[in-house]
């Protein structure tokens, strides 16, 4: 990779950020308006239910991000183009931010709605395990050491981490059924019987979360590329000195 190519690539990132940021900002404002002002207050749960408009979009974005890690990992192992590895690294990190958001907003809502911060419900446990797998993935990247082999290892973990999802899903679902049912779990029925304005606020929230993901991914990618160029430059300097 020559320095010129790297330059055009990173400036391409800046250009698309230039349009993404204002649109994303606008989307976030609209989503906030929809969540706090437009959507009606839930009859039983009250205002705390509005956390839905952040919680569910974050969960959807998390799945988008981790799917992207999976795809980029497959592409990296087949094509061996470091750009795919950069994408996987950035997407895993940003995806984990959204997963963490899901895991923080969830208990806050649950305490009010279900009377407890945490239940070992199938969906919660799946999210927690996915979060753990990708934390391990990020640790492998950070503590793995330098070298192209770590990129290959991460690609393998990114692939098996995502492929594990159906197994995790069924295991925690069956595991749950042997325990007492959680007090309230109306999520399943909620999608169908949801108020139109609530659904609209949720959709707007999802758009805003995805825009935020796109912006953060772009920024993280740019940082990743700068870091790599710096490393190459450092190596050159050392070999010359």
């Amino acid at each position, binding site marked *: 990779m020559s320095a010129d190519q790297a330059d055009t690539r990173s400036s391409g990132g800046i250009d698309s950020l230039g349009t993404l940021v204002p649109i994303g900002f606008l989307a976030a404002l609209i989503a906030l308006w929809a969540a706090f002002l437009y959507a009606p207050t839930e009859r039983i749960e009250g205002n705390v239910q509005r956390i839905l408009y952040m919680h569910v979009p974050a969960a959807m974005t998390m799945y988008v991000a981790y799917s992207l890690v999976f795809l980029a990992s497959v592409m990296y192992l087949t094509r061996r183009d470091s750009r795919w590895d950069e994408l996987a690294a950035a997407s895993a990190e940003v995806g984990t931010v959204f997963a963490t958001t899901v895991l923080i907003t969830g208990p806050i809502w649950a305490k009010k709605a279900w009377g407890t911060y945490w239940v070992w419900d199938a969906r919660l446990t799946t999210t927690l395990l996915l979060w753990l797998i990708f934390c391990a993935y990020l640790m492998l990247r950070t503590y793995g050491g330098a070298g192209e082999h770590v990129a290959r290892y991460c690609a393998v*973990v990114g692939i098996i981490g995502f492929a594990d999802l159906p197994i995790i899903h069924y295991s925690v679902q069956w595991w749950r059924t042997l325990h007492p049912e959680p007090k309230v779990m109306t999520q399943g029925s909620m999608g169908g019987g949801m108020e139109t304005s609530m659904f609209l606020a949720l959709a707007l929230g999802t758009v805003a979360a995805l825009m935020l993901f796109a912006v953060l991914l772009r920024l993280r990618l740019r940082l990743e590329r700068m870091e790599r160029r710096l490393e190459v430059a450092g190596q050159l300097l050392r070999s010359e000195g």
Partner: protein
Amino acid sequence: MSAARHIALIVAKDLRGELRTKEALTSTVFFSLLVLLVFNFAFDPGTRDLSVVGAGILWIAFLFGSILAMNRLMLDEREDARLEGLMLCPMERTSLYIAKCLSMFLLLSATEIVTLVLFVVFFNVPLDGQFGALALVVVLGTIGLVALGTTLATMSVRTRTREVMLPLLLIPFAVPLLIACVETTGSILAGRGLAEELHWLRLLIAFDALFLALGYLTFPALLEE
């Protein structure tokens, strides 16, 4: 030479090396014994339902023991550039994956048999006529641990943090396997057998097949230099 012959040669090499030092065997058996005892003191299973606590203790001992054994076996290959030597051999890299899985499986099975005996003795487990069912669960669980662990241990010993990385990677992935094994083992210990646990057996088989296939497909990518 055929792939089967390559695999047999590598497994024979691994076992010969292990039988000479008995390092992995001794340390893993001793460690599993310690895990059993620590949990015994922590939970006092004498006062609780064994099918609930016992199955968990047994599988924690297996899981933690397997981490120790797999690290041992893979770290050995790092010494004297042994893995590089193996990679120079004219054979498929996938044969190396199967061979390593087999060596690990044999090694772990040996340690698990000893752990199981200690478990039966210490926890006074009634196993009348249920040995076959328990063996089936242990074999399926071990295949899963080995299929996943071979892939993860191969990478973790070649990272900067070496053996620290393996448990961090393995445990989150192994949770579905752990749940399935504890549920089925618990049912066996309670004397209910496996008739109502067939979905867990299917899940274990799916887990084993998935990680064997993924390990087989991705192993060559782990070994490039």
